[in-house]
């Protein structure tokens, strides 16, 4: 049964990619895109219910492995991919109407969108650390051409940087994977099973510590480039600012999580082998540095999408820090923060996309008075900003609160650093978004109805997670945190 459920989950976006590669230039391509994403989402729900109820599962000759930890990312990925496809339907039509995109570019966009979802889902569900690498690289390749979709000099530069930096980064991750295999082969013997995470997890105490230490450094630097950890982050703001908005939303909301999932999986093995907190400490260091650098970079930003890209670096840093601390509470908080960050950040990008589309610019000083132009976009952006800044009662507050109280308890020295950085981020973002939403403007109202159902649906979910965490969900996340130790 699990084989079948997983097959449906993975084959739906693959089929979607194939269908849209053929029919991507038809009038109904956008609807087909949403339909395939919806089907993927349904498959993810079925799989999730199954795994949450009956625990970790292996499928297809142990090549795939799903437990409570990665299934939450599967569900999140499929959900945000679906809502983003809903958002992109009118958004991309308007871009086409403005003459920014041709039918051929949209054709590319739709097929790559589905294949990108497919690559992420494979990276999440595979049990083989080698296949994780292959799928992560595939996820980069499918998005490179999407970042340069507009073919402007700036978007080409951003895509080139993204390609080269993530290419190099991920090559280092491959070296780390090779070292991991080198260590594992001595324990598990040659052949396929030495890269399977479930097998590695069973024998992690016997793996050679020095090799694993080195392997983790390469894996962290490699996958960390994709997570956007400072100092490896320089591709991220460019790619988010210059790519089309739906791509920014899925990059920020989903791809960064998937890369972090690979880091967390490696961390479990390495800390198990070393019987120390080496991997966790490294993650905490990188995470903290990312939070601080990103928070203070926010002040200098003039481009609205760039600013929110830096905010993603900040939040990924916070999540990395949480997973680095480890333990049931911090891991729980890290997972919760991943969830609410994905939902909130994609909602913000949707609202920002419409605001930029309306004013024809991404420069914040030229966007003013959104509430007069389009109240829904304005409120969407304002509420999203409140949520991402960790204002109660939104869910981000809950997860940040948990992370900071754990830090206070376990690593008190880190608390002031975190609080100052979060305060700086608050001042920077709020100061810049406030005039955008409430300022005066002479612009006319939007000529088209914006697609804002996804924005408010996401924000409602984030609000709900802040007010009341359903026991089902809390129980599920707690089990996942227990699995990761």
């Amino acid at each position: 049964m699990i084989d079948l459920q997983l097959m449906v989950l993975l084959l739906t976006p693959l089929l979607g990619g194939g269908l849209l590669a053929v029919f991507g230039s038809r009038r109904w391509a956008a609807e087909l895109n949403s339909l395939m994403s919806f089907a993927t989402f349904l498959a993810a729900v079925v799989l999730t219910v199954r795994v949450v109820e009956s625990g970790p599962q292996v499928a297809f000759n142990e090549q795939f492995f799903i437990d409570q930890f990665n299934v939450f990312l599967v569900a999140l990925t499929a959900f945000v991919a679906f809502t983003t496809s809903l958002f992109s339907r009118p958004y991309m039509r308007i871009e086409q109407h403005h003459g920014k995109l041709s039918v051929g570019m949209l054709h590319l966009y739709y097929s790559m969108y589905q294949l990108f979802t497919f690559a992420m889902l494979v990276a999440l569900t595979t049990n083989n650390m080698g296949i994780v690498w292959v799928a992560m690289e595939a996820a980069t390749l499918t998005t490179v051409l999407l970042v340069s979709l507009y073919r402007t000099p700036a978007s080409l530069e951003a895509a080139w940087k993204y390609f080269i930096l993530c290419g190099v980064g991920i090559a280092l991750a491959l070296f780390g994977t090779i070292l991991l295999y080198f260590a594992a082969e001595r324990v598990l013997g040659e052949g396929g099973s030495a890269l399977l995470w479930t097998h590695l997890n069973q024998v992690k105490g016997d793996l050679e510590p020095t090799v694993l230490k080195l392997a983790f450094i390469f894996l962290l630097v490699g996958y960390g480039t994709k997570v956007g950890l400072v100092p490896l982050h320089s591709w991220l703001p460019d790619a988010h600012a210059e790519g089309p908005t739906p791509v920014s939303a899925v990059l920020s909301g989903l791809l960064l999580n998937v890369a972090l999932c690979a880091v967390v999986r490696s961390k479990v093995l390495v800390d198990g082998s070393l019987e120390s907190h080496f991997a966790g400490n490294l993650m905490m260091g990188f995470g903290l540095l990312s939070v601080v650098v990103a928070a203070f970079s926010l002040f200098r930003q003039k481009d609205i999408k760039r600013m929110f890209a830096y905010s993603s670096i900040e939040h990924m840093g916070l999540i990395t820090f949480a997973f680095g601390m480890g333990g049931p509470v911090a891991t729980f908080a890290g997972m919760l923060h991943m969830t609410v960050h994905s939902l909130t950040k994609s909602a913000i990008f949707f609202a920002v996309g419409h605001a930029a589309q309306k004013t024809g610019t991404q420069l914040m000083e030229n966007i003013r008075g959104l509430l007069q132009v389009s109240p829904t976009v304005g409120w969407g952006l304002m509420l999203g900003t409140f949520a991402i800044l960790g204002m109660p009662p939104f869910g981000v507050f809950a997860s940040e609160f948990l992370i900071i109280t754990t830090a206070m308890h376990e690593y008190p020295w880190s608390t002031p650093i975190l609080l100052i950085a979060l305060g700086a981020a608050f001042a920077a973002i709020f100061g810049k978004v406030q005039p955008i939403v409430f300022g005066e403007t002479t612009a006319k109202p939007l000529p088209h109805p914006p697609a804002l159902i996804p924005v408010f649906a996401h924000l409602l979910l984030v609000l709900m997670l802040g007010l009341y965490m359903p026991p089902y969900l809390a129980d599920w996340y707690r089990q996942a945190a227990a699995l990761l130790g």
Partner: protein
Amino acid sequence: MPIPLTLQFINLLAALLLLVAFAMLTQRRILSLINLFALQGAVLALSTFVVAYSTGQHHLYYSAGLTLLLKVLLLPWLLHRLIQRLNVRWDVETLINIPTTMLVGIALVIFSFNLAAPITQLAEGLTRGLIGIALASVLLSLLMMLTRRKAVSQVVAFLSLENGLFFAATSATQGMPLVVELGIALDVLVATFIFGIFFFQIRETFDSLDITHMEKLKDD
């Protein structure tokens, strides 16, 4: 104990791999750079073949064949066609002059050997001591990527980096599982196609393949 002949041969090939990496680092003609890349691929294929022969790992024959097909024939051919159509011959100036690059390269080799020392001590199999050389050639390719200005040479450096990784995989661990290797090969192939598309887009937009045009995106 005398060193077995096959191991001597693999050591020789490893040295050759490193030498080619250095040669690529100093080469400024793009055509010769691609030829060197093909040579490196050939060395890699041969060493994979020898490892396959001496350890009896049959799946390594497939990787050797795959390397030969992809990295000695297909990719260099694609790159040759690309530079012909784009009409680029020289990588005008490297960012750091060549003697300095060489010195940095030597420092990198020493660094990699130090880094790999604890692993080399654990080595027991036929070829496990070679991981230092693999790491060195990876880092040399990385250095080449950083010091080049032309998009084509950056890509050749990227592909050569992948060669170093493959060498690590075959020499240190007798090859990754075949499904992983196939996946990696597919990714490399697709990446090269995308690079090709990019060359044309970049040239169309900037009228040259010089990546120094692409330094506009800054925070300030």
